[in-house]
């Protein structure tokens, strides 16, 4: 069974299982695909997410990168998340590209005008990784020209740190991420950024149960890119992207995101289409406890 099919089957299976779970919690997500906001997962809830990126490639084959996320609210101030990544390069092959484990911590007890969140991630990915979940250093489009068989031989163990700042103002969410990445093989620190702004289409909730009420939709825009590394900080030889984003938070607990993404300079992929589907499972932590308690 090809890897792509296996991963899709896994995703579909998880989606199927989520139907068996009793209480759907309506997620209230911002629409960003790359930018993080200041909000964490609710305690003991699990969100299962599937994301997909179709990207154009000048001088090579277009690609479809996809990943699964398991996001768990360990506490109200700590969210942990596990990713599995893969990609298909057309006319080449489908390969797994690695895994990531991230943690986000909210250090301040109260809500402020600017709310910081600290982000720590370990990545074990190979050189064929194309999910573009973050852009760092001098990542450019031409890096993706290497055939999968050759690219996947390069293994990267990276530590990624982010400072996430988020604010809410008159219904708008404004989020800024500052990215610091260290390849543990001894390469220099690389830098990147992501910024986003979004707003629900309606701020007031409707007094009717509805899927298509405007308050269920959040629209916005995000921009992200690399900022070089310690030896050459700045925008030179970096890729930059601008992306309108839209999310539909359905009352059933499903969340759909979509984002056409445009490269802003010659080093960027000219166009990508990104989308994702997510389902939040309420009380996952309690269910796990129950499984183990019943066995003991």
């Amino acid at each position, binding site marked *: 069974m090809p890897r792509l099919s296996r991963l899709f089957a896994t995703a579909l299976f998880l989606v199927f299982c989520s139907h068996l779970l009793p209480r759907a919690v309506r997620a209230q997500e911002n629409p960003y695909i790359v930018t993080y906001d200041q909000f964490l997962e609710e305690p003991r809830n699990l969100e299962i997410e599937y994301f997909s990126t179709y990207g154009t490639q000048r001088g090579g084959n277009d690609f479809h990168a996809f990943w699964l996320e398991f996001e768990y609210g360990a506490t109200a101030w700590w969210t942990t998340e596990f990713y599995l990544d893969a990609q298909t390069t057309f006319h080449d092959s489908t390969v797994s590209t690695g895994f990531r484990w991230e943690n986000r911590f909210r250090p301040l007890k109260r809500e402020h005008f600017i709310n910081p969140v600290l982000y720590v991630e370990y990545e074990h990915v190979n050189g064929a990784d194309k999910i573009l979940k973050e852009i760092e250093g001098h990542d450019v489009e031409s890096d993706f020209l290497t055939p999968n068989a050759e690219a996947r031989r390069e293994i990267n163990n990276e530590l990624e740190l982010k400072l996430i700042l988020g604010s809410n103002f008159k219904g708008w969410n404004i989020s800024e991420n500052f990215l610091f990445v260290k390849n543990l093989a001894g390469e220099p620190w690389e830098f990147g950024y992501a910024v986003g702004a979004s707003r629900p289409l309606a701020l007031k909730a409707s*007094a009717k149960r509805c899927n298509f009420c405007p308050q269920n939709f959040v629209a916005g825009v995000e921009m992200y890119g690399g900022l070089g590394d310690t030896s050459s900080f700045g925008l030179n030889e970096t890729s930059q992207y601008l992306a309108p984003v839209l999310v539909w938070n359905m009352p059933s607990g499903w969340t759909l995101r979509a984002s056409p993404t445009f490269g802003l300079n010659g080093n960027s992929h000219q166009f990508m289409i990104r989308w994702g589907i997510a389902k939040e499972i309420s009380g996952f932590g309690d269910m796990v406890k129950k499984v183990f308690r019943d066995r003991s």
Partner: protein
Amino acid sequence: MKSCLISARIFALIFVVSLCFAQNQPETEKPARDTSHDYSELTKAPEKARVRANPFQNDPDAVVAGQFLFENHCAECHGDSGVGGKKGPSLRATEVQDATPGTLFWLLTSGVARKGMPVWSKLPEAQRWQLVRYLKSLGPKKDINTEKP
């Protein structure tokens, strides 16, 4: 690397299947009786927040809209009609019902992260006020978690 990824996927699948089966078993346990709910956070609201009036106080739709919001976001912890659940205290307790709308709005906005209450500023301000309007409409009721057996 390959075996590691396959193992991780198998583990994830087993985990979810276990949960599905676990969830389909009938719930026989009664909610834990916890008489130690702490409402002291309500007293920490700054004066400026405490005196804020609810702009939806006279909006007849706000209670219904707030109820839908409550069902979607709050009932999981605080019980279906705010009487308290395994994770969250009763919102029909005197401490909550006697609190000013501004105090409840402040608590919703700030959360009590160290005690498991998330920040709800992800909901627009208008929706948080609608929630407060619904909470205040519930009125006091004896907390099921503090009832004698």
